[in-house]
Protein backbone atom coordinates (compact mmCIF):
# COMPACT_ATOMS: atom_id res chain seq x y z
CA UNK A 1 0.00 0.00 0.00
CA UNK A 2 1.01 3.65 -0.21
CA UNK A 3 2.65 5.61 2.60
CA UNK A 4 -0.55 7.10 3.95
CA UNK A 5 -3.70 5.23 4.91
CA UNK A 6 -6.92 6.25 3.12
CA UNK A 7 -9.07 8.65 5.15
CA UNK A 8 -12.04 6.29 5.08
CA UNK A 9 -10.02 3.32 6.33
CA UNK A 10 -10.16 1.97 9.87
CA UNK A 11 -6.38 2.18 9.63
CA UNK A 12 -3.91 -0.23 11.20
CA UNK A 13 -5.55 -3.03 13.14
CA UNK A 14 -4.19 -5.76 15.36
CA UNK A 15 -6.22 -8.94 15.87
CA UNK A 16 -7.35 -9.95 19.36
CA UNK A 17 -7.59 -13.42 20.85
CA UNK A 18 -10.12 -15.11 23.08
CA UNK A 19 -9.14 -18.33 24.79
CA UNK A 20 -12.08 -20.30 26.13
CA UNK A 21 -11.47 -23.08 28.68
CA UNK A 22 -15.13 -24.09 28.92
CA UNK A 23 -15.82 -27.15 26.74
CA UNK A 24 -18.03 -26.50 23.73
CA UNK A 25 -20.54 -29.22 22.84
CA UNK A 26 -20.82 -29.40 19.08
CA UNK A 27 -23.77 -30.30 16.86
CA UNK A 28 -21.92 -33.38 15.57
CA UNK A 29 -21.93 -34.83 19.08
CA UNK A 30 -18.27 -34.19 19.82
CA UNK A 31 -16.88 -31.68 22.27
CA UNK A 32 -14.10 -29.15 21.92
CA UNK A 33 -12.45 -29.20 25.37
CA UNK A 34 -11.17 -25.67 24.85
CA UNK A 35 -10.89 -23.32 21.90
CA UNK A 36 -9.51 -20.05 20.64
CA UNK A 37 -11.14 -17.36 18.57
CA UNK A 38 -9.19 -14.71 16.73
CA UNK A 39 -11.09 -11.53 15.91
CA UNK A 40 -10.67 -7.93 14.87
CA UNK A 41 -12.60 -4.93 16.11
CA UNK A 42 -13.07 -1.47 14.60
CA UNK A 43 -14.57 1.63 16.19
CA UNK A 44 -15.43 2.21 19.84
CA UNK A 45 -17.86 0.29 22.02
CA UNK A 46 -20.19 2.80 23.67
CA UNK A 47 -20.79 2.85 27.42
CA UNK A 48 -24.06 0.91 27.36
CA UNK A 49 -22.54 -1.53 24.84
CA UNK A 50 -25.42 -1.11 22.45
CA UNK A 51 -23.54 -0.17 19.27
CA UNK A 52 -21.86 -3.49 18.47
CA UNK A 53 -22.11 -5.00 14.99
CA UNK A 54 -21.07 -8.58 14.30
CA UNK A 55 -19.64 -9.40 10.87
CA UNK A 56 -19.92 -13.02 9.73
CA UNK A 57 -17.47 -14.08 7.04
CA UNK A 58 -18.02 -16.33 4.05
CA UNK A 59 -16.41 -19.63 3.02
CA UNK A 60 -12.86 -18.41 2.49
CA UNK A 61 -13.06 -15.25 4.57
CA UNK A 62 -11.51 -14.52 7.93
CA UNK A 63 -11.40 -12.04 10.82
CA UNK A 64 -9.53 -9.42 8.81
CA UNK A 65 -12.54 -7.59 7.38
CA UNK A 66 -11.23 -4.02 7.21
CA UNK A 67 -8.13 -1.88 7.44
CA UNK A 68 -4.54 -3.04 7.28
CA UNK A 69 -2.58 -5.36 9.55
CA UNK A 70 0.66 -3.70 8.53
CA UNK A 71 1.86 -0.84 6.38
CA UNK A 72 3.32 -3.40 3.99
CA UNK A 73 -0.06 -5.01 3.35
CA UNK A 74 -1.07 -4.42 -0.25
CA UNK A 75 -4.80 -4.96 0.09
CA UNK A 76 -7.09 -4.03 2.99
CA UNK A 77 -9.45 -6.50 4.72
CA UNK A 78 -12.03 -8.40 2.64
CA UNK A 79 -14.98 -6.08 3.35
CA UNK A 80 -13.13 -2.78 3.52
CA UNK A 81 -15.60 -1.45 0.92
CA UNK A 82 -18.36 -1.57 3.54
CA UNK A 83 -16.62 -1.02 6.88
CA UNK A 84 -14.91 2.21 7.93
CA UNK A 85 -15.51 5.83 8.87
CA UNK A 86 -18.33 7.18 6.69
CA UNK A 87 -18.91 3.80 5.00
CA UNK A 88 -22.07 1.67 5.11
CA UNK A 89 -21.05 0.18 8.46
CA UNK A 90 -19.80 3.46 9.83
CA UNK A 91 -17.12 2.95 12.46
CA UNK A 92 -17.78 6.48 13.73
CA UNK A 93 -21.03 5.05 15.10
CA UNK A 94 -20.51 1.33 15.47
CA UNK A 95 -18.16 -1.02 17.27
CA UNK A 96 -17.55 -3.73 14.70
CA UNK A 97 -16.46 -7.25 15.64
CA UNK A 98 -15.34 -9.82 13.08
CA UNK A 99 -14.18 -13.24 14.30
CA UNK A 100 -12.60 -16.04 12.29
CA UNK A 101 -14.99 -18.98 12.42
CA UNK A 102 -14.11 -22.09 14.38
CA UNK A 103 -12.56 -24.57 11.98
CA UNK A 104 -10.96 -21.69 10.06
CA UNK A 105 -7.29 -21.48 9.28
CA UNK A 106 -6.40 -17.93 10.28
CA UNK A 107 -5.94 -18.26 14.02
CA UNK A 108 -9.18 -19.60 15.48
CA UNK A 109 -9.11 -23.25 16.55
CA UNK A 110 -9.20 -25.39 13.45
CA UNK A 111 -7.46 -28.16 11.55
CA UNK A 112 -4.19 -26.23 11.35
CA UNK A 113 -3.95 -25.55 15.10
CA UNK A 114 -2.62 -27.72 17.90
CA UNK A 115 -4.97 -30.17 19.60
CA UNK A 116 -4.29 -29.45 23.29
CA UNK A 117 -5.07 -33.05 24.19
CA UNK A 118 -2.39 -34.55 21.95
CA UNK A 119 0.02 -31.68 21.47
CA UNK A 120 -0.16 -32.34 17.70
CA UNK A 121 -1.93 -30.57 14.87
CA UNK A 122 -5.63 -31.39 14.66
CA UNK A 123 -5.52 -31.92 10.90
CA UNK A 124 -8.48 -34.01 9.75
CA UNK A 125 -9.29 -34.91 13.38
CA UNK A 126 -10.72 -31.46 14.00
CA UNK A 127 -14.46 -32.05 14.46
CA UNK A 128 -16.83 -30.88 11.77
CA UNK A 129 -18.35 -27.69 13.09
CA UNK A 130 -21.61 -26.23 11.82
CA UNK A 131 -23.23 -22.81 11.58
CA UNK A 132 -24.99 -23.58 14.88
CA UNK A 133 -21.60 -24.13 16.54
CA UNK A 134 -20.27 -20.87 15.12
CA UNK A 135 -23.17 -18.95 16.60
CA UNK A 136 -22.66 -20.65 19.97
CA UNK A 137 -18.94 -19.85 20.00
CA UNK A 138 -19.54 -16.26 18.91
CA UNK A 139 -22.11 -15.81 21.69
CA UNK A 140 -19.29 -16.66 24.10
CA UNK A 141 -17.16 -14.02 22.39
CA UNK A 142 -20.02 -11.52 22.79
CA UNK A 143 -20.26 -12.39 26.49
CA UNK A 144 -16.54 -11.81 26.90
CA UNK A 145 -16.95 -8.34 25.41
CA UNK A 146 -20.02 -7.71 27.64
CA UNK A 147 -22.20 -7.31 24.54
CA UNK A 148 -25.66 -8.56 25.46
CA UNK A 149 -27.31 -7.62 22.18
CA UNK A 150 -25.85 -6.87 18.76
CA UNK A 151 -27.16 -3.70 17.15
CA UNK A 152 -26.81 -5.71 13.94
CA UNK A 153 -25.47 -9.03 12.73
CA UNK A 154 -24.34 -8.74 9.12
CA UNK A 155 -23.04 -11.26 6.62
CA UNK A 156 -22.84 -12.20 2.96
CA UNK A 157 -23.06 -15.66 1.41
CA UNK A 158 -22.24 -18.27 4.11
CA UNK A 159 -21.89 -15.26 6.44
CA UNK A 160 -25.45 -14.28 5.60
CA UNK A 161 -26.66 -17.73 6.53
CA UNK A 162 -24.80 -17.42 9.80
CA UNK A 163 -26.36 -14.02 10.45
CA UNK A 164 -29.79 -15.52 9.79
CA UNK A 165 -29.01 -18.34 12.20
CA UNK A 166 -27.99 -15.85 14.87
CA UNK A 167 -31.39 -14.15 14.58
CA UNK A 168 -33.21 -17.50 14.71
CA UNK A 169 -31.32 -19.18 17.53
CA UNK A 170 -30.57 -16.23 19.82
CA UNK A 171 -33.46 -13.89 19.00
CA UNK A 172 -33.09 -11.63 22.04
CA UNK A 173 -29.46 -10.90 21.20
CA UNK A 174 -29.97 -9.48 17.69
CA UNK A 175 -31.69 -6.14 17.00
CA UNK A 176 -31.14 -6.13 13.23
CA UNK A 177 -30.00 -8.76 10.82
CA UNK A 178 -28.63 -8.18 7.30
CA UNK A 179 -28.60 -11.27 5.11
CA UNK A 180 -26.81 -10.60 1.82
CA UNK A 181 -26.48 -12.91 -1.20
CA UNK A 182 -27.48 -15.92 0.86
CA UNK A 183 -29.94 -18.82 0.80
CA UNK A 184 -31.98 -20.63 3.45
CA UNK A 185 -30.17 -23.86 2.51
CA UNK A 186 -28.03 -25.21 -0.30
CA UNK A 187 -29.65 -26.65 -3.39
CA UNK A 188 -28.61 -30.03 -4.82
CA UNK A 189 -26.59 -28.11 -7.42
CA UNK A 190 -24.77 -26.12 -4.71
CA UNK A 191 -23.92 -29.34 -2.85
CA UNK A 192 -22.79 -30.92 -6.10
CA UNK A 193 -20.29 -28.11 -6.70
CA UNK A 194 -19.01 -28.50 -3.14
CA UNK A 195 -18.60 -32.23 -3.65
CA UNK A 196 -16.53 -31.72 -6.79
CA UNK A 197 -14.30 -29.32 -4.83
CA UNK A 198 -13.90 -31.84 -2.01
CA UNK A 199 -13.18 -34.64 -4.45
CA UNK A 200 -10.48 -32.51 -6.07
CA UNK A 201 -8.79 -32.03 -2.70
CA UNK A 202 -9.19 -35.59 -1.46
CA UNK A 203 -7.94 -37.18 -4.66
CA UNK A 204 -4.73 -35.17 -4.67
CA UNK A 205 -1.91 -37.68 -3.91
CA UNK A 206 -0.46 -35.09 -1.51
CA UNK A 207 -3.64 -35.09 0.59
CA UNK A 208 -2.66 -38.12 2.69
CA UNK A 209 -6.13 -38.46 4.24
CA UNK A 210 -5.82 -34.92 5.51
CA UNK A 211 -2.49 -35.55 7.27
CA UNK A 212 -0.50 -33.70 4.61
CA UNK A 213 1.23 -31.50 7.17
CA UNK A 214 2.74 -34.57 8.82
CA UNK A 215 4.20 -35.36 5.42
CA UNK A 216 5.41 -31.80 5.07
CA UNK A 217 3.36 -31.21 1.99
CA UNK A 218 0.17 -29.50 0.78
CA UNK A 219 -2.46 -30.82 -1.69
CA UNK A 220 -1.82 -27.84 -3.95
CA UNK A 221 -3.31 -29.30 -7.04
CA UNK A 222 -6.54 -30.33 -5.35
CA UNK A 223 -7.06 -27.18 -3.29
CA UNK A 224 -6.19 -25.07 -6.32
CA UNK A 225 -8.73 -26.92 -8.45
CA UNK A 226 -11.37 -26.49 -5.75
CA UNK A 227 -10.71 -22.77 -5.75
CA UNK A 228 -10.85 -22.54 -9.55
CA UNK A 229 -14.22 -24.22 -9.55
CA UNK A 230 -15.48 -22.10 -6.67
CA UNK A 231 -14.26 -18.96 -8.38
CA UNK A 232 -16.25 -19.75 -11.53
CA UNK A 233 -19.41 -19.98 -9.42
CA UNK A 234 -18.65 -16.63 -7.74
CA UNK A 235 -18.52 -14.77 -11.05
CA UNK A 236 -21.18 -14.41 -13.70
CA UNK A 237 -20.78 -15.27 -17.36
CA UNK A 238 -21.24 -11.58 -18.04
CA UNK A 239 -18.56 -10.49 -15.57
CA UNK A 240 -16.06 -12.98 -16.97
CA UNK A 241 -16.93 -11.90 -20.49
CA UNK A 242 -16.40 -8.23 -19.62
CA UNK A 243 -13.15 -8.86 -17.82
CA UNK A 244 -11.50 -11.47 -20.06
CA UNK A 245 -13.66 -12.19 -23.06
CA UNK A 246 -11.74 -14.54 -25.35
CA UNK A 247 -8.57 -12.56 -25.06
CA UNK A 248 -5.37 -14.50 -25.66
CA UNK A 249 -2.22 -14.00 -23.60
CA UNK A 250 0.12 -14.05 -26.58
CA UNK A 251 -2.28 -12.58 -29.09
CA UNK A 252 -2.65 -15.71 -31.19
CA UNK A 253 -3.70 -19.31 -30.84
CA UNK A 254 -0.83 -21.73 -30.13
CA UNK A 255 -2.57 -25.05 -30.79
CA UNK A 256 -1.29 -26.49 -27.52
CA UNK A 257 -2.44 -27.30 -23.99
CA UNK A 258 -0.68 -24.52 -22.13
CA UNK A 259 -2.45 -21.47 -20.79
CA UNK A 260 -3.67 -19.47 -23.77
CA UNK A 261 -6.79 -17.56 -22.89
CA UNK A 262 -6.58 -14.82 -20.25
CA UNK A 263 -9.32 -16.47 -18.22
CA UNK A 264 -7.17 -19.60 -17.89
CA UNK A 265 -4.28 -17.53 -16.67
CA UNK A 266 -6.52 -15.71 -14.21
CA UNK A 267 -7.93 -18.93 -12.76
CA UNK A 268 -4.44 -20.36 -12.35
CA UNK A 269 -3.32 -17.24 -10.57
CA UNK A 270 -6.37 -17.44 -8.28
CA UNK A 271 -5.62 -21.06 -7.54
CA UNK A 272 -1.94 -20.50 -6.75
CA UNK A 273 -2.53 -17.50 -4.51
CA UNK A 274 -5.36 -19.29 -2.69
CA UNK A 275 -3.22 -22.31 -1.89
CA UNK A 276 -0.72 -19.95 -0.25
CA UNK A 277 -3.31 -18.53 2.12
CA UNK A 278 -5.79 -21.30 2.79
CA UNK A 279 -5.86 -24.73 4.38
CA UNK A 280 -7.31 -27.74 2.56
CA UNK A 281 -8.89 -29.30 5.66
CA UNK A 282 -10.58 -25.99 6.49
CA UNK A 283 -11.92 -25.87 2.93
CA UNK A 284 -13.42 -29.33 3.34
CA UNK A 285 -14.92 -28.36 6.69
CA UNK A 286 -16.38 -25.05 5.50
CA UNK A 287 -18.06 -26.65 2.50
CA UNK A 288 -19.59 -29.25 4.81
CA UNK A 289 -20.88 -26.54 7.13
CA UNK A 290 -22.51 -24.97 4.07
CA UNK A 291 -24.05 -28.26 2.96
CA UNK A 292 -25.49 -28.97 6.41
CA UNK A 293 -27.02 -25.53 6.92
CA UNK A 294 -30.79 -25.87 6.96
CA UNK A 295 -32.56 -24.06 9.80
CA UNK A 296 -35.97 -25.27 8.59
CA UNK A 297 -34.99 -28.91 9.07
CA UNK A 298 -36.04 -29.08 12.71
CA UNK A 299 -39.33 -27.38 11.83
CA UNK A 300 -40.62 -30.01 9.38
CA UNK A 301 -38.90 -28.15 6.55
CA UNK A 302 -41.13 -25.15 7.20
CA UNK A 303 -38.94 -22.04 7.00
CA UNK A 304 -41.80 -19.84 8.19
CA UNK A 305 -41.89 -21.80 11.44
CA UNK A 306 -38.11 -21.59 11.68
CA UNK A 307 -38.10 -17.78 11.50
CA UNK A 308 -41.06 -17.36 13.89
CA UNK A 309 -38.71 -16.84 16.84
CA UNK A 310 -36.88 -13.93 15.17
CA UNK A 311 -37.22 -10.61 16.96
CA UNK A 312 -34.76 -8.73 14.81
CA UNK A 313 -35.73 -6.43 11.99
CA UNK A 314 -34.18 -7.63 8.78
CA UNK A 315 -32.81 -6.47 5.47
CA UNK A 316 -32.33 -9.08 2.78
CA UNK A 317 -30.29 -8.22 -0.33
CA UNK A 318 -29.69 -10.21 -3.50
CA UNK A 319 -27.92 -9.53 -6.82
CA UNK A 320 -29.43 -10.10 -10.25
CA UNK A 321 -26.44 -11.94 -11.78
CA UNK A 322 -25.76 -14.15 -8.74
CA UNK A 323 -26.40 -17.70 -9.87
CA UNK A 324 -24.79 -19.38 -6.89
CA UNK A 325 -27.43 -17.94 -4.54
CA UNK A 326 -29.85 -16.30 -6.93
CA UNK A 327 -32.46 -13.68 -5.96
CA UNK A 328 -35.02 -16.50 -5.83
CA UNK A 329 -33.10 -18.04 -2.94
CA UNK A 330 -33.16 -14.76 -1.03
CA UNK A 331 -36.86 -14.50 -1.76
CA UNK A 332 -37.40 -17.82 0.01
CA UNK A 333 -36.07 -16.15 3.16
CA UNK A 334 -38.09 -12.98 2.51
CA UNK A 335 -41.31 -14.90 1.95
CA UNK A 336 -40.84 -16.91 5.15
CA UNK A 337 -40.30 -13.67 7.09
CA UNK A 338 -43.35 -12.10 5.45
CA UNK A 339 -45.62 -15.00 6.22
CA UNK A 340 -44.34 -15.02 9.80
CA UNK A 341 -45.28 -11.32 9.94
CA UNK A 342 -41.71 -10.21 10.69
CA UNK A 343 -40.21 -6.82 10.01
CA UNK A 344 -38.37 -7.23 6.70
CA UNK A 345 -37.14 -5.23 3.73
CA UNK A 346 -35.84 -6.74 0.52
CA UNK A 347 -33.74 -5.30 -2.29
CA UNK A 348 -32.60 -6.92 -5.50
CA UNK A 349 -29.55 -5.09 -6.81
CA UNK A 350 -28.81 -4.89 -10.53
CA UNK A 351 -25.24 -6.14 -10.77
CA UNK A 352 -23.15 -7.94 -13.36
CA UNK A 353 -20.53 -9.27 -10.94
CA UNK A 354 -22.31 -12.48 -9.91
CA UNK A 355 -22.12 -13.81 -6.36
CA UNK A 356 -19.02 -11.73 -5.62
CA UNK A 357 -21.11 -8.58 -6.06
CA UNK A 358 -21.75 -8.58 -2.31
CA UNK A 359 -18.11 -7.61 -1.78
CA UNK A 360 -18.16 -4.75 -4.30
CA UNK A 361 -18.90 -1.08 -3.66
CA UNK A 362 -21.86 -1.02 -6.08
CA UNK A 363 -23.46 2.44 -5.61
CA UNK A 364 -27.11 1.38 -5.19
CA UNK A 365 -26.13 -1.52 -2.92
CA UNK A 366 -24.02 0.72 -0.71
CA UNK A 367 -26.71 3.40 -0.63
CA UNK A 368 -29.34 0.95 0.65
CA UNK A 369 -26.87 -0.72 3.01
CA UNK A 370 -25.79 2.66 4.43
CA UNK A 371 -29.36 3.98 4.70
CA UNK A 372 -30.38 0.91 6.66
CA UNK A 373 -27.39 1.12 8.98
CA UNK A 374 -28.12 4.81 9.58
CA UNK A 375 -31.53 3.76 10.90
CA UNK A 376 -29.81 1.22 13.14
CA UNK A 377 -27.46 3.94 14.41
CA UNK A 378 -30.45 6.19 15.09
CA UNK A 379 -32.07 3.47 17.20
CA UNK A 380 -28.82 2.93 19.10
CA UNK A 381 -28.55 6.63 19.88
CA UNK A 382 -32.21 6.70 20.93
Amino acid at each position, binding site marked *: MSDSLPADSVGLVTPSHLHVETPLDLECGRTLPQFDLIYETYGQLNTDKSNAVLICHALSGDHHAAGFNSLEERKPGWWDSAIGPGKAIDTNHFFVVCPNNLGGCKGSSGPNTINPETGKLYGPDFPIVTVTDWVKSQAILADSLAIQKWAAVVGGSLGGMQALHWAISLPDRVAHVLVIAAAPKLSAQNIAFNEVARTAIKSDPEFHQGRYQEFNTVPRQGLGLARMLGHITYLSDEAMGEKFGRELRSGKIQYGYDVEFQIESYLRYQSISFVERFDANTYLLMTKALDYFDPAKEFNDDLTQAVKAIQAKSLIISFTSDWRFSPLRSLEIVNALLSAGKSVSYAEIEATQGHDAFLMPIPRYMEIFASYM*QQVAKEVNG
Partner: protein
Amino acid sequence: MTLRVDLQIISDWIPDNAHVLDLGCGNGALLKHLQQRNVTGYGLEIDNSKFTECIHSGVNVIQADLDVGLGQFADQSFDFVILSQTLQAVKRPDFLLREIMRVGKQGIIGFPNFGHWQCRVQLGLGGKMPVSKNLPNAWFDTPNIHLCTLKDFEKICDQYGFSVVNRSVVNHEHKDTLGIRLLPNLFGQIAVYLIHNGKS
Protein backbone atom coordinates in the same frame (compact mmCIF):
# COMPACT_ATOMS: atom_id res chain seq x y z
CA MET B 1 -45.06 16.55 6.93
CA THR B 2 -48.35 16.88 5.09
CA LEU B 3 -49.62 13.85 3.25
CA ARG B 4 -50.77 13.82 -0.34
CA VAL B 5 -54.54 14.30 -0.63
CA ASP B 6 -55.42 10.68 -1.39
CA LEU B 7 -53.07 9.39 1.30
CA GLN B 8 -54.75 11.60 3.89
CA ILE B 9 -58.13 10.10 3.01
CA ILE B 10 -56.69 6.59 3.23
CA SER B 11 -54.97 7.27 6.52
CA ASP B 12 -58.29 8.39 8.01
CA TRP B 13 -59.87 5.05 7.10
CA ILE B 14 -57.22 2.88 8.73
CA PRO B 15 -57.67 2.17 12.43
CA ASP B 16 -54.81 1.97 14.95
CA ASN B 17 -52.85 -1.31 15.13
CA ALA B 18 -53.97 -2.50 11.68
CA HIS B 19 -51.74 -4.66 9.49
CA VAL B 20 -51.46 -3.24 5.97
CA LEU B 21 -49.82 -3.79 2.61
CA ASP B 22 -49.17 -0.65 0.56
CA LEU B 23 -48.74 -1.46 -3.14
CA GLY B 24 -46.58 1.03 -4.97
CA CYS B 25 -45.80 2.71 -1.66
CA GLY B 26 -43.56 5.41 -3.21
CA ASN B 27 -41.29 6.99 -0.61
CA GLY B 28 -43.20 5.29 2.20
CA ALA B 29 -44.89 8.47 3.43
CA LEU B 30 -48.20 6.77 4.24
CA LEU B 31 -46.61 3.85 6.11
CA LYS B 32 -44.30 6.22 7.99
CA HIS B 33 -47.31 8.30 8.96
CA LEU B 34 -49.26 5.22 10.05
CA GLN B 35 -46.36 3.94 12.17
CA GLN B 36 -47.26 6.63 14.71
CA ARG B 37 -50.55 4.80 15.22
CA ASN B 38 -48.90 1.42 15.59
CA VAL B 39 -49.96 0.28 12.15
CA THR B 40 -47.62 -2.47 10.90
CA GLY B 41 -46.99 -3.90 7.44
CA TYR B 42 -45.00 -3.54 4.28
CA GLY B 43 -44.69 -1.42 1.22
CA LEU B 44 -44.04 -2.78 -2.25
CA GLU B 45 -42.02 -0.54 -4.56
CA ILE B 46 -40.10 -1.09 -7.77
CA ASP B 47 -38.55 2.36 -8.26
CA ASN B 48 -34.94 2.41 -7.02
CA SER B 49 -34.80 5.89 -5.54
CA LYS B 50 -38.20 5.70 -3.86
CA PHE B 51 -37.20 2.30 -2.47
CA THR B 52 -34.10 3.80 -0.88
CA GLU B 53 -36.17 6.61 0.62
CA CYS B 54 -38.31 3.97 2.33
CA ILE B 55 -35.24 2.29 3.80
CA HIS B 56 -33.94 5.67 4.86
CA SER B 57 -37.12 6.46 6.76
CA GLY B 58 -37.32 3.06 8.44
CA VAL B 59 -40.28 1.70 6.49
CA ASN B 60 -40.40 -2.02 5.64
CA VAL B 61 -40.23 -2.22 1.88
CA ILE B 62 -40.05 -5.12 -0.54
CA GLN B 63 -38.76 -4.54 -4.04
CA ALA B 64 -41.42 -6.12 -6.22
CA ASP B 65 -43.26 -5.80 -9.50
CA LEU B 66 -47.02 -5.55 -9.04
CA ASP B 67 -47.61 -6.98 -12.50
CA VAL B 68 -46.52 -10.42 -11.31
CA GLY B 69 -49.17 -10.40 -8.59
CA LEU B 70 -48.99 -10.90 -4.86
CA GLY B 71 -48.11 -14.60 -4.84
CA GLN B 72 -45.76 -14.20 -1.89
CA PHE B 73 -48.63 -13.20 0.40
CA ALA B 74 -51.11 -15.58 1.97
CA ASP B 75 -54.89 -15.26 1.62
CA GLN B 76 -56.49 -12.69 3.92
CA SER B 77 -53.17 -11.90 5.60
CA PHE B 78 -53.67 -8.12 5.81
CA ASP B 79 -56.42 -5.97 7.29
CA PHE B 80 -56.04 -3.54 4.40
CA VAL B 81 -54.31 -3.68 1.05
CA ILE B 82 -53.76 -0.20 -0.38
CA LEU B 83 -53.27 0.76 -4.00
CA SER B 84 -53.20 4.49 -4.54
CA GLN B 85 -52.73 6.21 -7.90
CA THR B 86 -51.24 3.03 -9.36
CA LEU B 87 -54.18 0.95 -10.62
CA GLN B 88 -54.11 2.79 -13.94
CA ALA B 89 -50.42 1.98 -14.46
CA VAL B 90 -50.48 -1.82 -14.09
CA LYS B 91 -50.76 -4.27 -16.97
CA ARG B 92 -53.86 -6.06 -15.74
CA PRO B 93 -55.89 -4.03 -13.22
CA ASP B 94 -58.51 -6.80 -13.07
CA PHE B 95 -55.90 -9.38 -12.02
CA LEU B 96 -54.37 -7.06 -9.43
CA LEU B 97 -57.79 -6.17 -7.99
CA ARG B 98 -58.55 -9.85 -7.42
CA GLU B 99 -55.10 -10.32 -5.88
CA ILE B 100 -55.73 -7.38 -3.56
CA MET B 101 -59.00 -8.85 -2.36
CA ARG B 102 -57.40 -12.28 -1.96
CA VAL B 103 -54.64 -11.14 0.42
CA GLY B 104 -56.57 -8.31 2.08
CA LYS B 105 -59.69 -8.36 4.20
CA GLN B 106 -60.45 -4.95 2.71
CA GLY B 107 -58.99 -3.04 -0.20
CA ILE B 108 -58.39 0.67 -0.55
CA ILE B 109 -58.07 1.78 -4.16
CA GLY B 110 -57.39 5.34 -5.26
CA PHE B 111 -57.22 6.50 -8.88
CA PRO B 112 -57.58 9.60 -11.06
CA ASN B 113 -61.08 9.87 -12.47
CA PHE B 114 -60.98 9.79 -16.27
CA GLY B 115 -64.64 10.80 -16.32
CA HIS B 116 -63.84 14.29 -15.05
CA TRP B 117 -65.38 16.96 -17.28
CA GLN B 118 -62.04 18.33 -18.38
CA CYS B 119 -61.06 14.92 -19.75
CA ARG B 120 -64.41 14.68 -21.47
CA VAL B 121 -64.08 18.13 -23.03
CA GLN B 122 -60.55 17.50 -24.28
CA LEU B 123 -61.53 14.22 -25.87
CA GLY B 124 -65.15 14.95 -26.83
CA LEU B 125 -64.77 18.48 -28.17
CA GLY B 126 -61.03 18.84 -28.69
CA GLY B 127 -60.73 15.38 -30.17
CA LYS B 128 -57.43 14.81 -28.33
CA MET B 129 -56.31 12.50 -25.54
CA PRO B 130 -56.66 14.44 -22.27
CA VAL B 131 -53.67 15.91 -20.50
CA SER B 132 -54.21 17.36 -17.03
CA LYS B 133 -52.45 18.05 -13.75
CA ASN B 134 -53.34 14.51 -12.64
CA LEU B 135 -52.48 12.91 -15.95
CA PRO B 136 -49.65 15.06 -17.26
CA ASN B 137 -48.17 12.69 -19.87
CA ALA B 138 -48.83 12.54 -23.59
CA TRP B 139 -50.60 9.45 -24.90
CA PHE B 140 -47.41 7.89 -26.23
CA ASP B 141 -45.25 8.04 -23.11
CA THR B 142 -47.76 7.83 -20.31
CA PRO B 143 -47.36 5.17 -17.62
CA ASN B 144 -51.13 5.43 -17.16
CA ILE B 145 -52.28 2.77 -19.56
CA HIS B 146 -55.56 1.65 -17.99
CA LEU B 147 -57.56 4.72 -17.12
CA CYS B 148 -61.09 4.40 -15.82
CA THR B 149 -63.97 6.41 -14.51
CA LEU B 150 -65.91 6.03 -11.27
CA LYS B 151 -68.61 4.16 -13.15
CA ASP B 152 -66.10 1.78 -14.73
CA PHE B 153 -64.55 1.02 -11.37
CA GLU B 154 -67.85 0.38 -9.66
CA LYS B 155 -68.86 -1.90 -12.49
CA ILE B 156 -65.77 -4.11 -12.18
CA CYS B 157 -66.22 -4.28 -8.39
CA ASP B 158 -69.79 -5.41 -8.94
CA GLN B 159 -68.65 -7.95 -11.49
CA TYR B 160 -66.19 -9.54 -9.03
CA GLY B 161 -68.59 -9.33 -6.08
CA PHE B 162 -66.67 -6.62 -4.20
CA SER B 163 -68.86 -4.16 -2.38
CA VAL B 164 -68.08 -0.51 -1.85
CA VAL B 165 -67.95 0.25 1.88
CA ASN B 166 -66.85 3.83 1.53
CA ARG B 167 -66.05 6.27 -1.23
CA SER B 168 -64.35 9.61 -1.21
CA VAL B 169 -64.33 11.79 -4.32
CA VAL B 170 -62.54 15.11 -4.24
CA ASN B 171 -60.80 17.65 -6.39
CA HIS B 172 -57.10 18.56 -6.25
CA GLU B 173 -57.59 20.79 -3.26
CA HIS B 174 -59.05 17.86 -1.34
CA LYS B 175 -62.38 19.68 -1.49
CA ASP B 176 -65.70 18.01 -1.69
CA THR B 177 -67.75 20.57 -3.65
CA LEU B 178 -71.48 20.62 -4.29
CA GLY B 179 -70.82 19.65 -7.90
CA ILE B 180 -68.85 16.61 -6.81
CA ARG B 181 -71.60 15.57 -4.42
CA LEU B 182 -74.23 15.81 -7.13
CA LEU B 183 -72.22 14.51 -10.09
CA PRO B 184 -69.07 12.82 -8.77
CA ASN B 185 -68.17 11.13 -12.04
CA LEU B 186 -68.23 14.50 -13.79
CA PHE B 187 -66.62 16.77 -11.20
CA GLY B 188 -64.43 14.47 -9.08
CA GLN B 189 -60.71 14.40 -9.92
CA ILE B 190 -59.48 11.86 -7.39
CA ALA B 191 -61.49 8.88 -6.19
CA VAL B 192 -60.66 6.62 -3.28
CA TYR B 193 -62.71 3.49 -2.61
CA LEU B 194 -62.86 1.19 0.38
CA ILE B 195 -64.05 -2.19 -0.81
CA HIS B 196 -64.52 -5.62 0.70
CA ASN B 197 -65.35 -9.10 -0.44
CA GLY B 198 -68.99 -9.99 -0.85
CA LYS B 199 -72.16 -8.02 -1.16
CA SER B 200 -72.84 -5.42 1.52
